[in-house]
């Protein structure tokens, strides 16, 4: 078991290296990409000269790669033109908000997605199956940015019950900073006003992000459930006289959920990707908003920084999932 963990962990730096390489490759797709990425289209001669020296833009590609790698390994991801701070510093500021959003969505997806999947499997080919799958597919088909706007239209402009954007009511102000996660911080400091406000602001973006990512979880749960329900031990349970609820939701579900765990890692990746558009629409101050704002202002270094960070997190989550997996299934031994 220990060997397995070590093997998985050893994989981590290799993949990260690969990620950095791919990003480098993408930012140098055509001559001039690198400059555009670093300085934007409005570079002055002085800036150009400085960058050329700093990044070795006049040297061969391999050399540039080396410089780039060196910088990344030392946490130098460049500087943002808009904020003026280093990208690393910016990321540290904006990351907690995205994490808060992603975790909330993950919780919603797990609960709702699995329920829909189970319902779809148990009532296979019936009305509920149709509906559950329809909701899942419908959700993933909606462009996230559009859904966000529609939802704001409905709940803020027309119904007036939920806020349109931002993370918290500016009049209430952020709770004392401990983790950066407003919900957690406000709970820890007993700041109920802040807690309530954050929650209200969190609802719409979290639901939008969740709805558009239900599909994978629902589908996986459904097919896993269907497979499990065909197993002998389920027929056996029925042969003992157990009723539908017990058989489906306790005996079958525990088995069916095992493969679903592996899908959750994948889903988290999609959540991070989706966060970009959602944060933009809802003015949610996370790394997604940071990246898209930078793009709009042709400030590209932050975008690359965010790409690297997100990839790191995604790879880490997948490795953690791989390690947890054998713990859930009592049959697997390493």
């Amino acid at each position, binding site marked *: 078991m220990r060997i397995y963990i070590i093997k998985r962990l050893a994989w981590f730096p290799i*993949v990260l290296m*690969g*990620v950095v*390489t*791919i*990003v480098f490759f*993408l*930012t*140098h*797709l*055509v001559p001039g*990409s690198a400059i*555009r*990425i670093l300085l934007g289209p409005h570079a002055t001669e002085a800036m150009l000269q400085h960058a050329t020296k700093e990044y070795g833009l006049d040297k061969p590609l391999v050399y540039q790669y080396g410089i780039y790698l060196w910088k990344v390994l030392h946490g130098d991801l460049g500087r943002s033109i808009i904020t003026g701070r280093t990208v690393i510093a910016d990321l540290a500021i904006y990351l907690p908000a995205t994490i808060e959003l992603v975790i909330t969505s993950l919780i919603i997806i797990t609960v709702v997605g699995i329920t829909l999947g189970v319902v779809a499997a148990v009532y296979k*080919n019936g009305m509920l199956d*149709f509906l559950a*799958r*329809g909701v899942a*597919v*419908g959700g*993933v*088909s*909606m*462009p*996230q*940015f*559009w*859904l966000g*706007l*529609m939802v*704001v*239209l409905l709940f803020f*402009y*027309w119904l007036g019950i939920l806020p349109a954007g931002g993370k918290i009511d500016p009049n209430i102000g952020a709770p004392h900073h401990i983790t950066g996660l407003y919900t957690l911080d406000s709970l820890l400091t007993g700041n109920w006003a802040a807690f309530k406000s954050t929650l209200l602001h969190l609802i719409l973006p979290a639901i939008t992000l969740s709805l558009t990512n239900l*599909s994978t979880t629902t*589908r996986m749960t459904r*097919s896993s459930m269907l497979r499990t329900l065909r197993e002998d031990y389920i027929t056996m349970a029925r042969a003992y006289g157990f009723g539908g609820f017990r058989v489906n939701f306790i005996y079958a579900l525990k088995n069916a959920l095992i493969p679903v765990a592996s899908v959750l890692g994948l889903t988290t*990746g*999609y959540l*991070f*990707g*989706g966060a*970009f*558009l959602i944060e*933009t*629409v809802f003015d949610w101050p996370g790394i997604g908003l940071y*990246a*898209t704002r930078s*793009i*709009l202002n042709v400030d*590209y270094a932050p*975008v*690359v920084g*965010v*790409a690297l960070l*997100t*990839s790191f997190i*995604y*790879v880490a989550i*997948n490795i953690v999932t791989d390690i947890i997996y054998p713990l859930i299934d009592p049959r697997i031994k390493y």
Partner: protein
Amino acid sequence: MKKVKERLRYVGYVIKRSPLSIIGVFLIILIICIAIFAPLIAPYSPYKIDMSNTLRPPSAKHWLGTDSLGRDVFSRVVYGSRISLKIAFVVVSIAATSGTLLGVISGYYGGMIDMIIMRIVDVFLAIPTFILAMVAAASLGPSITNVMLALSIIWWTWYARIVRGEVLKLKSMYFILAQKSLGAKSFRIILHHLIPNCMGPIIVQTTLQLGFAILTSAGLSFLGLGAQPPAPSWGLMVSDGRQYLPGYWWMATFPGTAIFLLVMGFLLLGDTIRDVLEREVT
């Protein structure tokens, strides 16, 4: 031939029993027709500016209203279908061909080639797709062509991985070993035996990827990385319409709905085909 007919009959049977797929097929055909017959359907040119008629709500004259430059939203949505479909088909065609080729080579020859290709695929897939697309598009410069290029570079990885998986499964099957022992050349084996047997998952993936490609390209356009004004790209239209919410809601709502319907069409169809194939395997 008989097997193909039998399969088609089976597919027809399953599709009939699953109303969701019928909706999917209907939507796809509808929108493709709209794209093809755009000039006949759209009452106005999508580029025609009419400053005396700006920001009009939906009416008999302008079914979906007009935008900030007086252009007819309906016509723009109709022509926008061409952009979305073009991007989707181009990207997925390139991705499917190159990805399948690489996947087959990787799976069949194994060894060093396999390792190298798969590591590259793993790394590509380690970066969330949208972010990858964003960086590539930013790097190339915003335009529809560059969006297609950027997505093509990324998209092949899905195919490579799936096809390789299928090939590995097939490789150990007896009929491949039989062919080899009969002296069939590798090339022939790949072309005549491996690829046709992978068609199932490839078709499923293609249908689904068409949907996702549309979503991703729309997202890029929304952020300003894709189509540039005055192109009637759906994503761009939603972005433009955003600042006019809530009073002039039609500019952002309808293009988004179009994206939703087209993508859902592809996903419903792909889902159904996938179900059919899965049933065949079990």
